[in-house]
Structure formats: structure tokens, C-alpha cells
């Protein structure tokens, strides 16, 4: 049986007909929309490489059935930059060497954006490490990742303060 769903992906409405309910959000993004920035690492919810924002919250897209997320608003790594202008978290990852091979990076960045929105870590590196523990980096770039997240969070806080002032 075919199932029709619609999603908003990086601001654009997309309609799909699913001929098989087994499709995850991860596979839908990669195979149907060719948005391959979201990575398939373990495919079992253990590595965080597939992290995306769904309705503003970070989740593992490998453990989310697309059919169950009809109507969802999805943000992926491809939806962050405005032309050549990188998102503050993207820029901070470059500035702080927050990666080596880069495979985990889209998931790290999406997770960091989700974490900053959650607002639980503050400026405490220990809390950032705890809040980012769902994203593994086998190159071991964690020191740079934590620095990048802290810097980007500070910039985004400042921007928000300017906007509200």
C-alpha cells in the first residue's frame, strides 16, 4: 500500500509517495532528495552522524520512520548557510578545527544547534561535553568541537540580544 506524506525540508514543502513504510527520514533525505550531507554512520542510533532537527529538536534520523513524521519541519546541514555566509556553528567548527575527516561533522553541527536551542549547557565545557555525548568523533576532534560550540553559542547569544534590544 502506498502512503503519501509531506514534509518541509529546509524551508521547502516536499511531497512523497512511500511504497514501503520502512523508509527512515535518513534514507528519505539521502536517497529521495539527494541531501547527502546527513550521514549514515551506524544506522542504529549510536553515533549521531545522522542528527537533524525535526520541529526544532535534534533527533537521530536513522531511527525515525518517515511515514510517522508526516507534516514535520526538517532542518538539515544543507539548510544552514545563506549563500556563502556560513551559519555561526559552521564557521566556528572551521575556526577551531572541530573536525579531521569530516564524516561526523554535519551531525555534530546539527546537534550543536539543537543543543544551543535547548539552552541547558551554559558556558560550562563539562556540560557541553555531556550535552554533545550523542555525537561520536572517531578522529577525536572533541577538544575543537567543544571550543567551537562554546564560541558559536556565545555569538548566537549576542546576536539574539542585539535583536531583542
Amino acid at each position, binding site marked *: 500500500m502506498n502512503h503519501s506524506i509531506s514534509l518541509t525540508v529546509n524551508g521547502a514543502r516536499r511531497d512523497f509517495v512511500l511504497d514501503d513504510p520502512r523508509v527512515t527520514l535518513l534514507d528519505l533525505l539521502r536517497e529521495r532528495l539527494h541531501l547527502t550531507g546527513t550521514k549514515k554512520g551506524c544506522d542504529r542510533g549510536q553515533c*549521531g552522524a545522522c542528527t537533524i532537527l525535526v520541529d526544532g529538536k535534534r533527533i537521530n534520523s536513522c531511527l525515525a520512520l518517515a511515514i510517522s513524521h508526516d507534516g514535520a519541519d526538517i532542518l538539515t546541514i544543507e539548510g544552514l548557510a545563506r549563500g556563502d555566509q556560513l551559519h555561526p556553528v559552521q564557521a566556528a567548527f572551521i575556526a577551531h578545527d572541530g573536525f579531521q575527516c569530516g564524516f561526523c561533522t554535519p551531525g555534530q553541527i546539527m546537534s550543536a544547534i539543537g543543543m544551543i536551542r535547548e539552552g541547558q549547557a551554559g558556558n560550562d565545557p563539562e556540560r557541553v561535553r555531556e550535552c554533545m*555525548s*550523542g555525537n561520536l568523533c572517531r578522529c577525536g576532534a572533541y577538544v575543537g568541537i567543544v571550543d567551537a560550540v562554546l564560541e558559536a553559542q556565545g555569538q548566537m547569544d549576542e546576536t539574539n540580544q542585539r535583536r531583542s534590544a
Partner: protein
Amino acid sequence: MKPFDYVRPATVTEAVAAAAQPGAVFLAAGTNLLDLMKGGISRPDRLVDVTRLDGLDQIETLADGSLRIGALVRNADLAHDADFARSYPAVAEALLSGASAQLRNAATVGGNLLQRTRCAYFYDTASRCNKRAPGSGCDALQGENRGHAVLGWSESCIATHPSDFCVPLVALDAIVEIEGRGGRREVTLDELHRLPGDAPERETVLEPGDLIVAVRLPPAARGFAAHARYLKVRERTSYAFAVVSAAAALRIENGRIAQARLALGGVAAKPWRARAAEDVLKGVAPTADAFQEAALRALEGAKPSGDNAFKIELARRIVVRALTLAAAGTPARIPALPASPFASTSGALHV
């Protein structure tokens, strides 16, 4: 993954009827179920998606002072609810010590209760496992079993229940509301999970079609807010299941323990309520000696199921430490950073 039919019922009654069919299972977030399906451990014919059912995602205080948590409330939303964390701090700590932020954003209250064991032999379909394939045997008994049960296990199964959330819940007398083919009923959380005995494939008292619709904390559960902690020992700082954990909650009046609640995680096929330990703490001063005695009582009857004798002594020490932390008082910032002995900073942040 085996193909399946997908249905999305509009009402709880429809959901119960759909899931009562052989081969049908409920789908909430799917954070555990999809993992099991990808590995071929769970092979359902039909998924009954309950995520759109109305009214199951509320946190509400009832007239009698109970707290009713809808089964579809997300783990993160519950842990970060300020009123909830203030009233039930050990539960918030337990929630935030489980899984990762991404998983907690998706995983539901009902799903957490019904998650399956992480026993590696249960997950490995080439291994014998009485839980996955009843009657096939248990390869964990002679395998890598240092993480397995030390209480309530049987020769059929030595797996543990992996939930952190359930540990303080069982200590606080949580009640599980169930909608089934015969209507609404409720059981205590302590009654929900079964010990393996000779039927480890029957993990709960739920019948086909039974849907957990809410978890309720009785009015007395609020009385422990000033002295409640969840302590979890893991093999890495974060994002790991408990080797051993403990939830301790005390009501202290005039320097004496008026009432104590204690439960252990990672030691049995269910969250393990330690009532004998609670009894010896009632009416005594919160001293190290009292906590040592409680720890001995809590592990009465414990025996290794393999290379895991260390867990018995570890559990005693965790009981003492959790009680000591609870007696010292709930930290001002709740949820505290979840417990880890390997954190780079010690003291107030980590327990």
C-alpha cells in the same frame, strides 16, 4: 528489515484493537523498536503508530496531588519541565543520565518502560537466547556476562532491564495506567515487569493490545524532593547504560529518617525496589552505619550469574553513596549534571 504493514489509528480504542492482532506492535518514537527491527531481533508484521493519539502527551497535576504523565511525553520534555524536576529531582536526573540528547528528544515515557534488554546475546541473532527464541537456551550464561543480573535471575535468562527512568519511578511507587481490550486498568510499576523464571520472553504483565497511556506518581512522591538523588555508574562518562545505578529518596524530620525509598538499576530484569533496606532506615538517623546496613539488606539474596560478582559489592557501595548524597540534600540546580565517576570535574556538578 522485514516488511510490515503500517496503520495509524485515530483513537486509543482503535489502537488497542489493531495491536491485539497477532504480530502487531505499537510504534511510538521507535528509538528502540527500529533498532531491534533493523537487527532482525523484532520482526513485527504490523506497526500501530500511536504518536498521533490525542491527549497522551500531557503532564498534569490531579486534584489529589498525584502527577499524571502521558505515555507520549518525550523524555527530554519531562526532564526539563521545571516543576517536574523540582518535585521529583531523582526522576529528572535519571532521565538525563539515559541515552543521548537526540534519543531523549524522541523517546517517550511509555516506550522507556517497555524498552528491551541490551544483553548482547539477545541482540545477536546467531546466539541462543530464551528471550528472543523461547527454549533455544542462553549463551549469556557461559559468555561475556560481567554486566548481567545479580538479583532475580534464572538459568533461563540473566539479562537486565536497561532503563534509568524506571529506577526512581519504582522507588516512588509509580502506577502504570493501561488501556486494554477489557478497558482501563492499572498496575504498579513494580508489578509491570516480570522476573524471567522459566519464561523470560514474557517481560511484562501486559496482554496483547494493552497500551500504556500514562504513568502516575502518587501524592506522597513529592515528599522526598528535598533529599532525592539518582546515581549511575557507567563504563564511560556519558551515553552508556548503567553497570549499576541507585535511586535514593529520604524524608528527614528532626534529624531522623521518617521514610526512605530505594531502588537499584542494572542488577535485575526489572527495576529493583529494595524494601528491606527502606525498612531498616525508617526512624533512624541518616548515618554511615545506617546506610551500610541498608546496603547489605538491599543486596540480600544477590548472587553472581557469571563474571559479575563485583557488581554485588559495587551495588552496595552505590547504595551507600546514593543515600549519603540524598541525605546531604538535593542540589540547588536540578537536573544536576548526570552522575559519572569519570567526569573531569568532581564535586557539585557530578555525583
